[in-house]
Structures are given as structure tokens and as C-alpha cells.
């Protein structure tokens, strides 16, 4: 995309099950699709094990030999580079970390999580990416509500990792999602206040905020100085207020329809009935001269190629971005 904003596309929507999106030719097809849609930069999602070979840094390197080898792989499809890598330290990893469950909310886990960040920090820097995008805390349903002290425990972990990313010359961006234990506007603001603005930024995801009941445009205007990364996607639904606390909300709410027969939460830009004011949000980014990446994604929303093409159409025809 030829624009003053920097546009990238997230690969997570292709990797919908553990046994798909493993073969290099499938990945090439996805990369060519993204490229044909006008995006020359991608975001990688985190994962685990030898079948997450375009997600987990160690496995990527096993597949391609080196950072340069991986970049060469991308460039075969006319994808120039990587904007960012997503990492959730709460998600158990099989092979790399011995399937340990850890949480940033647990002070005893802090040292291990900081240590775990190393391969990600190294990889983000090694492939010339800009941001390590992280899930700052686990799901709300798994823990009691966080008070200010609890938020400080979480923030301290990220402040420590922020020192490492800064030292490596990359950014660290805390990504809000609609199930996280940092859920309300107050909790989110509290987390941002407890982290060091010099080293820890915010990854604003338009759909996740909307589902969580926070207006992404207003939040961006309030916190533009902290926003170092953007995920742009739409949703047709908002949490009724308590659904994120459903036991097993990853399944019962996001995959199980929250008892409301919602088949899918996340949608491509321009979807009918979308709740996100995408033009308004992008205009706000332009007003503030937002310098970071805008990563378009549709997050397991349906047919990946179709959604990438519809998102591209929206950028070109509705937002007026030249391809």
C-alpha cells in the first residue's frame, strides 16, 4: 500500500488449527495472496511446536536456517518483511517451555516469563521487525479481578521486558483483548500508567476494544502518545458486560457463541453491521501523525484469502489508499 500510514497484514487468520498452514507451499500461497492484495509486510502470531513453523521463532529458524533465510522465504512471494510478532506468555508451549502454565499476574512467574521473552526479542530484532506485541495478562475468567497491586505486578513484568526490547532496538506493545483480566477502561488505563512510556507501548485492536466495551476512537484520542501498534479489524457484537467472565470464555464465548448463537465475533473491514468506525479511527491516526504499523487482520473470521481481498478492497476503495 502506498500511503503515509504503514500497512501490514496479520497471518494469524490462516493458522486456524494445529495441523494446517504447516507446509511451505501453503505459506507461500498465503504470502502471495497478501502480496496480491497490496501488502508487503506481515505480522506473525505466536505458537508452539514443530507445526507452528511460521509462528514460533526457534521453529522458524529451524525451517529457514537464519533470519535472512526466513526473509528470503518471504521475498519469494514479494513480501518484504515483518512488522511485528505476537506473543502470549500465558499460552502454554509444548516443546520450547516444557508446557508450563505461567501468568504475569503471578509474581513467582515473573523471572521465567522475562527469560521466555528472549527468543521473541531476538527474532523481532533479527528479522528487522518493529514491535513485539504481547498479551499482557491471562483471561479474566481464570483469575480474581485485578486490583491496583495486581496490575502493578503485571506491569513490572512488562517493564522488565521493555528494557530488553529497548536494548534490542525494538518496541514492546501491550495488546488488549476482549477476554483479558485487564478489561475495563480503568484497568487498562491503570496498566498503561503503571508501565514505562519510554519502553512500553500500547497495541490498540479496534475490534477487541469494541467487544470489551471501550470505544477505540475515543481511547486512541486519549492515549495517542502511548499507542505504538494497531490491529485494525471489525466486529458486529459487543460483550453484554459479563460474557468475558464465562468459564472457558475462549471456547464458550468466542467459539461457543456466548449462548447467543454468535457464530463469529470478528469481521473484515466494511462488514455489514460492523460496530467499529473504521474511517473515523483511521482519520484519527492520520490527525495524530501515527508513526507505527497498522496491521489489518480478520482473526479466524472465515476464508482467509477472501477476507484479505475484502480488506484490501476496503482500503483501496473506501479509505482511498493507493495499492
Amino acid at each position, binding site marked *: 500500500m502506498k500511503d503515509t500510514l504503514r500497512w501490514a497484514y496479520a497471518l494469524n487468520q490462516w493458522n486456524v488449527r494445529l495441523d494446517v498452514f504447516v507446509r511451505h507451499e501453503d505459506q507461500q500461497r498465503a504470502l502471495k*495472496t497478501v*502480496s496480491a492484495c*497490496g501488502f508487503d509486510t506481515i505480522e506473525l502470531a505466536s505458537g508452539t511446536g514443530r507445526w507452528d513453523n511460521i509462528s514460533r521463532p526457534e521453529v522458524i529458524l529451524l525451517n529457514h536456517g537464519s533470519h535472512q533465510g526466513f526473509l528470503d522465504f518471504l521475498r519469494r512471494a*514479494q513480501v518484504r518483511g515483518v512488522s511485528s510478532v505476537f506473543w502470549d506468555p500465558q499460552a502454554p508451549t509444548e516443546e520450547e517451555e516444557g508446557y508450563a502454565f505461567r501468568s504475569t499476574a503471578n509474581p513467582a512467574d515473573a523471572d521465567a516469563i522475562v527469560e521466555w521473552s528472549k527468543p521473541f526479542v531476538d527474532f523481532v530484532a533479527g528479522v528487522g521487525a518493529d514491535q513485539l506485541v504481547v498479551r499482557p495478562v491471562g483471561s479474566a475468567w481464570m483469575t480474581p479481578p485485578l486490583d491496583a497491586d495486581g496490575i502493578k505486578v503485571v506491569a513490572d513484568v512488562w517493564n522488565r521486558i521493555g528494557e530488553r526490547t529497548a536494548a534490542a532496538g525494538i518496541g514492546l506493545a501491550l495488546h488488549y483483548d476482549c477476554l483479558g483480566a485487564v478489561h475495563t477502561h480503568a484497568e487498562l488505563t491503570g496498566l498503561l500508567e503503571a508501565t514505562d512510556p519510554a519502553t512500553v507501548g500500547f497495541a490498540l485492536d479496534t475490534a477487541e476494544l469494541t467487544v470489551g466495551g471501550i470505544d477505540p476512537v475515543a481511547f486512541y484520542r486519549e492515549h495517542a502518545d502511548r499507542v505504538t501498534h494497531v490491529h485494525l479489524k471489525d466486529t458486529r457484537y459487543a460483550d453484554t458486560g459479563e460474557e468475558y467472565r464465562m468459564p472457558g470464555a475462549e471456547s464458550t464465548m468466542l467459539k461457543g457463541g456466548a449462548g447467543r448463537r454468535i457464530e463469529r465475533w470478528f469481521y473484515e473491514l466494511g462488514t455489514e453491521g460492523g460496530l467499529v468506525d473504521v474511517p473515523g479511527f483511521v482519520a484519527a491516526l492520520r490527525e495524530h501523525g501515527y508513526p507505527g504499523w497498522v496491521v489489518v487482520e480478520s482473526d479466524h473470521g472465515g476464508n482467509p*484469502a477472501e477476507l484479505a*481481498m475484502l480488506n*484490501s*478492497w476496503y482500503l*483501496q476503495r473506501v479509505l482511498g489508499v493507493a495499492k
Partner: protein
Amino acid sequence: MSDERAIKWSYMDHWRSNGPAGPVDQWHSHRTMSAFLKQIKAVGFDAIDTFDFRIWQMYGDYGGPAKYQEMVQDHGLERIVNTFHAADYDVRNYAPHLPETHENILEDFRVTMGRWSEIELDNIIVMPATLYYDMEPVTEDKLKYSAECWNKVGEITAGSGVRLTCHHEFFCGIQSEPDIDTFYSYTDPRYVSLFVDTAQHCIAGVDPVALYDRHAHRVSGFHFKDTRNVATGDDHRHRPDSEIMAPTTGKWFHEMGTDQGLVDFAAMMTAVRDNGYRGWISVEHDKANKEGGDYSESTAISRWYAKNVLEEIYR
């Protein structure tokens, strides 16, 4: 991109997407049509081709071809370039090699051209023969009768400003190199053109580049698609259907840029350049959703290939 381009890309209308009750085509609803046109435009196609039998949906759902074309244009695409006339060939009443059926064929085209009269098409594309098994043995007389038939049809379509052009499916009666050459020797260049389908010729064992070079002055368009298989044995005359029922091959067609593709697209594009062709190339990946394939992805991959490989040769 400027309008200086010698080549523009049109998308031939095979398409399926996954609906709530199974696969649907883009004509399913205005919503699916819009999603189709958006995707085609997003990856940089300039226009679309369609099938004649879609005319009913154009009239029924959009108010006619002109109104439908307005919707196409509202999505940023130029127009409808070509239509494919998918006729029900039958030796009882519709067989170009049987002169007694010609009047029925001519009447079909008189009616058809009337239906399309509100927009300007470049080509109406036909398979110029029945299925192979309905025409064999393919004799010079049969080729001559077929040529006479299409000469008359071409005169009718020319009256509407549309070129009649022939697309040689590997399973139709005129598919071998000598038969194709004989057929064109009997047709009138004013009224009958050749439409080169890279995969179909390749499957029939004909080199599409050589065929194009030999008939370049008669060529009025292309279907660029790929294949991984050449027909063997009775594949081309398999009853009751070869295209999707031949025992050897479950899926004949693949998008260009596919792994293991047999078409030499670099040579093809070089020939297009060297013959000074200017105009439309249509991209097709007929039945892309067979065996787990996906139309959206095949469309993106083929357009990627056009942009990153073929346009480097000629644009």
C-alpha cells in the same frame, strides 16, 4: 498503473464461496456478487468475462446486462469484456458438423445477440464442436461443415459488433493440432477468430505457444490457466463426460502460477509481446474449488503471478 498498458486483465466468471448451507456462486445474491467483485478488484483485475447463461440473472436480478454492468463499474471494474456461449451440443439438434442442425444454431445466435445488445462485448466465445465422442471420426468434411456453420454465426455476431471466437476444449471434436489447423483453413478470418486457452491446448497435447504463433493474426483473446495433466488414452472421449469425470484426473485445471504447471507462461507472454498483441487477457481457473481448492486464493495467486512474473515480460 497508467492507461498506457498494452495488456489488461479480465476475470472469467467461475466462482464459488462457502455459504451457510454449502458452496454458492456469486450470482447467489447481491451480497455475494458484491463480495466477488470486490475481491476481483482488490487484487487488480480490470474487468470481468461471463457466461451467456448468466443473462437470465442479469435480467432477473439486476434489470439487464447494462444495469449489471453498472454494478460492475461501481466496484471499480471497467466492464464485461467477453461472454462464453455454453451451448447444449446434441447430435439431434445442435451439432456444427451436422448441416441439418445449422439453422437451429443460427437462430440461437440471433436470439442471443439480441439479448446482449444493450452492452458492447468484445467476443462471444464458443466451443466450436460437439463433444469428441459425438463427432468422431473427425473427417475433413465434418471440419468443413463446422467451419461453414461458424462462418455464418460469425456474420451474425459481427452484425452486433461482437467477434465470434473459438475455444478448443480438449474434449471437443476439434482439439488436435491438425484438426484445428484444418478448421481455420476453412473459416473466414473476418468472421471466426481463435481464443487460446493455454490449459485446454496443453491437455490436448498441443503446444499453446506454437499454436498461437501460427494463428496470431486470428487470435482475439486468451484464457490463461494452467494444468498439471496431459490427457491420455480415452480421456478426451470419455463417456458421458471428460471434463470432470475422466478416471485419470479429478481436477484438470489449476490457476496460473501453480506448482507443477505444464503451461510455459513465460514463453506464452513473450509470444503475446512479440506478436504485438494489445488488449485483454482473461484469467480463468475453472473449478478451482475441486479437491480442496479455493477460488479466492486461486484468484489472488493468479493475479500475483500476472503482476510479478508476466507483467515483467510485457505489460
